[in-house]
């Protein structure tokens, strides 16, 4: 595993008595694309601002490359930020914007000129040196903001919902651009977003946050396929989250029907939550599956049909390329390894997380 670059230790932060971050511990490794994902108000931006130096934690420490930088001013940190609203200097042209950090560091004119050229090429804006920020589109402005940050050769680039203000098509293009940039630069990206699709597309490592706590972290595949609690399951993609009973190892009773699964170690007759992704629900002819149901809605979504099936008193969300008719009597069947079993929230605090969504 790559070397650890940033470590947040027991970081807490509150504003006006509202706890934003509570005893947060987070470790970020060199040369990784880390996304902090969560709904608005979950503390993700505050976490980024603490790393960037724009906020000081009430408690805890920020360690950067082995050094405590908790109280270091932003201008003394070896990292740069790309802000949500671009934050370009409107009184300077593009070249001057990009040169800003280098001029502060007293680099030579020749060096600065080379860097501007290199950075503009990297973000596909060659020839834009003497344009003013106001004359650029949102996507172009964001590219300039990225260029302005990376010419300083930071070890870490912080990105605060940088694609939030762009339209869908542009956002998707920029996602690929960012992956390419990250690979070309070979530095660490810490990306903050509320968009789960963005997170899944770009990240090596996702940190899901809610209410100031880290809910789960891991690779995109792990977060998607093995959510640790109902919040993560619900926030990442569509899902069927159902209260169930773990009858014994590898057997779970969902809505009165016994399904085989692959999970063990929950004990005998333990209440659990199960997550089943819509694309993992199979509709089979009556009598061939586990739970009988009736199709209540069918919508064509392009790639697949989105269907709702009433079964065992629950509206199952089903994605399938094979269409069923409304009113069809079907059975629901799920492959054992597609049933993700999770512990039921232990405290009311955790329960609140679920209700809040």
């Amino acid at each position, binding site marked *: 595993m790559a070397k650890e670059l940033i470590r947040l230790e027991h970081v807490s932060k509150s504003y006006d008595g509202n706890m934003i971050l509570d005893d947060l511990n987070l470790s970020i490794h060199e040369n990784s694309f880390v996304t902090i994902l969560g709904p608005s108000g979950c503390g993700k931006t505050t976490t980024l601002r603490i790393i960037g130096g724009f906020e000081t934690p009430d408690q805890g420490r920020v360690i950067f490359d082995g050094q405590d930088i908790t109280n270091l*001013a*932003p*201008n003394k940190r070896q990292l740069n*930020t790309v*802000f949500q609203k671009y934050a370009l200097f409107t*009184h300077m042209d593009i070249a001057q914007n990009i040169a800003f950090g280098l001029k*502060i*560091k007293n680099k030579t004119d020749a060096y600065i000129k080379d860097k501007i050229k290199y950075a503009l090429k990297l973000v596909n804006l060659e020839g834009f040196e003497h344009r003013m920020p106001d004359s650029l589109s949102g996507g172009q402005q964001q590219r300039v*903001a990225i260029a*302005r940050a990376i010419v300083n050769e930071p070890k870490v680039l912080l990105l605060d919902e940088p694609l939030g203000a762009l339209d869908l098509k542009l956002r998707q293009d920029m996602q690929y651009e960012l992956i390419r940039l990250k690979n070309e630069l070979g530095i660490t990206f810490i990306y903050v977003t509320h968009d789960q699709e963005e997170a899944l597309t770009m990240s090596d490592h996702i940190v899901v946050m809610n209410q100031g706590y880290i809910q789960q972290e891991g690779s995109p595949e792990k977060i998607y396929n093995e959510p640790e609690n109902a919040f993560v399951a619900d926030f990442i993609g569509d899902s069927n989250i159902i209260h169930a009973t773990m009858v014994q190892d590898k057997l779970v009773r969902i809505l009165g029907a016994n399904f085989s699964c692959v999970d063990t170690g929950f004990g005998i007759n333990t209440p659990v939550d199960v997550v089943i992704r819509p694309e993992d629900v199979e509709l089979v002819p009556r009598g061939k599956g586990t739970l009988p149901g009736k199709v209540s809605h069918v919508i064509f979504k392009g790639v697949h049909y989105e269907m709702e099936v009433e079964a065992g008193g629950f509206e199952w969300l089903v994605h399938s390329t094979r269409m069923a008719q409304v009113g069809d009597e079907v059975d629901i069947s799920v492959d054992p390894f597609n049933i993700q079993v999770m512990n039921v929230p232990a405290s009311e605090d955790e329960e609140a997380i679920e209700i809040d969504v």
Partner: protein
Amino acid sequence: MFNNRQTSRLLASPYIAWAVIFIVVPLAMIFFYGLTDESGALTFANVAAIARPENLKSLGLALVLALISTIICFLLAYPLAMILASNKISSQGIITTLFILPMWMNFLLRTMAWMTLLENKGVINGILSFFGLPTINIINTSAAIVIGMVYNFLPFMILPLYNALARIDDSVINAARDLGANAVQTFFKITLPLTIPGILSGITMVFIPALTTFAISTMLGGSKILLIGNVIEQEFTLSYDWNMGAGLSLVLMLFIIVNMVVTMMTDKSSNS
């Protein structure tokens, strides 16, 4: 019925009538009086009268005092506007009220209040002598006029500066810090340049009324100190020489126009 243009023309007509009667016509009359003699013959003598030593002295003094007042206003207003725009001060409302409140009082009343404060046997000297301190002789001096100008025109500097500063997004300041600039560099490279339009309009809003005032100089400068405004006023009210008064007004107007053109050009170049 009406199309849009007709409707807006109709709605604008009361103001247009007002503007023609009370702005365009008087301006035309100033030009007429300023460029003619008593018999109505064309002459540049009234305008040229600015070259007389006593008039030049008044104009020079007015320019100097207006400049000093503008600089003082700027130096007082900028930090205050920064505090107001920062939003971090919970007493923002109180500060705003403190600066707006005097503006609700009549301009002449405010200036008269300064007379009572600054008089040789006035409030300030009263307090000084109560504590056995030497009294100051400030009424009827240029300093008193500057105090009056700064007091009266300061809000006109604060408001445009506040507007310009409030428009700067926090993230722009953060970006500068993020790119390695310390607080001082951030101020001179980002904050100050971004507020140039506000600074220019603040300067115009203070400098022009300060340059043309005659009420403040009359009340706080006594009859000893004549600014160009006083000279023009006296031509109209004492000498009844409307031609001379109008001629000198035209010279003053030239200074105002130059100031505005310079402001507009600087504003444009800072934006492009």
